């Protein structure tokens, strides 16, 4: 039982339950299973993005370009759909994954081959990808009336009573769970974050693994691009502007250490859900949505204060650092 309570995810889950409890004292219907399913669906894209960001942060890197990647890829698939409505949706999703992969690989190559710190690389590509969206679209929007009914309807179709979007999120969560806990790549990702030097001696190619995590976050960005555009049915240069920080916030609240090596799939999902519940709850309990930003800011600070307390107790660095 004591070991059970050590898991940060348990505390986060408890915080979420308390949060839902508090909201339902003001608005009882909020805790209704149907509504909670809706909240899950609303948060799906953020959860997927947070998982992509998580693997990057675990290796002591950061990907600030995810939202811009989402914006660019979303524009690509929206324009593709508007020009050729006959292209089936699964093929469009493959296109989105590939475009995202290319954008992520650019980040990864710069980090891997040129050894530029990831925060600098993705700060640059953050503006480049969003700018490229403008060049691609000429500043025009792709509106709902130009998108095919399939394009909009695909993620809304219900399967076993749950929208496809939620199923995609569940699938991605499952894939990441397998990746992080059942594969050598997942273990390498953790190892690099805990101690890059020891990882090199253990035979892990640190640079290549970093390249791979940026490819993963790129593909996630691309997938989210399609999901975002078909959900909010508008593709423009402004899509998801500044959203990269929400993604990182979800990770931080989920207990993923920005110093790398600490974090779990469950944490990232719960962190995203926490933010999703807040943004869903504010309107129903009659708090102006303008409060949301300050509340999530406070949640981030609180989460990092609590996480730091937990991290300090672990003696996780066992080898002397070689760097000065």
């Amino acid at each position, binding site marked *: 039982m004591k070991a059970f309570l050590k898991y940060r995810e348990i505390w986060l889950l408890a915080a979420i339950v308390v949060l839902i409890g508090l909201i339902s004292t003001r608005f009882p219907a909020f805790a209704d299973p149907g509504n909670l399913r809706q909240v899950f669906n609303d948060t799906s894209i953020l959860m997927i993005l947070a998982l992509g960001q998580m693997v990057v942060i675990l290796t002591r890197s*950061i990907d600030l370009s995810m939202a811009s990647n989402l914006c660019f890829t979303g524009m690509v698939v929206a324009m593709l759909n508007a020009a050729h409505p006959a292209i089936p949706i699964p093929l469009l999703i493959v296109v989105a994954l590939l475009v995202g992969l290319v954008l992520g690989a650019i980040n990864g190559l710069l980090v891997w081959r040129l050894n530029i710190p990831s925060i600098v690389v993705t700060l640059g590509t953050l503006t480049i990808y969003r700018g490229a969206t403008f060049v691609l679209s000429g500043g025009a929007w792709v509106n709902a009336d130009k998108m095919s009914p399939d394009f909009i309807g695909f993620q809304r179709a219900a399967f076993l009573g749950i929208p496809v979007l939620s199923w995609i999120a569940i699938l991605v969560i499952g894939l990441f769970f397998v990746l992080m806990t059942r594969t050598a790549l997942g273990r390498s990702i953790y190892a690099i974050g805990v101690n890059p*030097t020891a990882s090199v001696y253990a035979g892990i190619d640190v640079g290549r693994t970093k390249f791979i995590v940026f490819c993963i976050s790129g593909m996630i960005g691309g997938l989210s691009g399609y999901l975002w555009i078909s959900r909010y049915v508008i593709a423009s240069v402004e899509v998801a502007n500044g959203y990269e920080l929400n993604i990182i916030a979800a990770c931080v609240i989920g207990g993923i250490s920005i110093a790398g090596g600490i974090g779990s799939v469950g944490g990232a999902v719960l962190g995203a859900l926490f933010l999703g519940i807040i943004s869903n709850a504010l309107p129903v309990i009659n708090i102006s949505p*303008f409060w949301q930003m300050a509340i999530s800011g406070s949640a981030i600070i609180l989460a990092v204060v609590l996480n730091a307390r937990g991290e300090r107790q672990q003696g996780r660095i066992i080898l002397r650092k070689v760097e000065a």
Partner: protein
Amino acid sequence: MTDIPAPRRIPDRLDKPFRSAIFSWEALLVVVAVAIFAINSFASPYFLDPYSLSDLTFNFTEKGLIAFAMALLIISGEIDLSVAAIIALASTMMGMAVQAGAGTPVLVAIGIVVGLGCGAFNGLLVTRLGLPSIVVTIGTMSLFRGIAFIILGDQAYKGYPSSFAFFGQGYVWWVVSFELVLFLIAAVVYWFLLHRTSFGRRVFAIGNNPIAAQFSGVRVGRTKFLLFCLTGLMSGIASVLITSRLGSTRPSIAQGYELEVITMVVLGGVSILGGAGSIVGVVLAAFIMGLVTFGLGLLNVPGIVMSIFIGLLLIIVIALPIVWRRLRGGR
């Protein structure tokens, strides 16, 4: 074996020999700046005009002021992503004061004090609780701007006194704006602080090796706290300038400035890993970014396309020396 960092060398002498100065980062930036200046004056007949050039300076003075303090902070191994949010909060507070009938001196004081207070709040969280600054300031970034949104919602504050307009719109002499003068004074002050005082040496020492610095008797926590306060203070000053220039406050004011400020600092040759950098580089980078945005603006290039150039410039300028070194064989 790509990821083991080599131990950094700290120069014993601050003054570099002439030969290494030619190949320095600053020299590269001067070349880039001159090239962009030349391209601009060929590309647009309106560029080489005193009034155009004066307008140009408004593109970088406000961000540049913050970039100086941010440079010191990044050299010490920390970062502050909340600077634009501090601008928004300070501006909102000034707007509230105007509503209450405050005069110009009070407004300036409020802007600066709010900035300083926000910086101190960041500094306390980072140094007292030992938290990573990138996460803390992502949090305070939402918090500070969030407070501005709570206060203002979708409204705007207007009606600033006419004497307040001087800070952002006034000229000291001919085409030399007050903002430019302030920028140049700050450049000299920060150059002196970083390169000619023991405080500056301590900042470098902390950035290169905080533990060694601690054992050498440097009060690491206090120094970092002061740097966060400085960054907050400069954001407060920038807030006064921007609010005065725009004459109104919306909660979305200065959105995205934090990334532009950091781009400026990194472009200026400050190592994002800490421990290296110079104020001269940051001044040059500020000019370059101003030149690029203004030159493209004269050619009717939309702002979003300009950002592509800024992003490319950042990556290329960082990548060039690395590629160059590799081509010459040494690694």
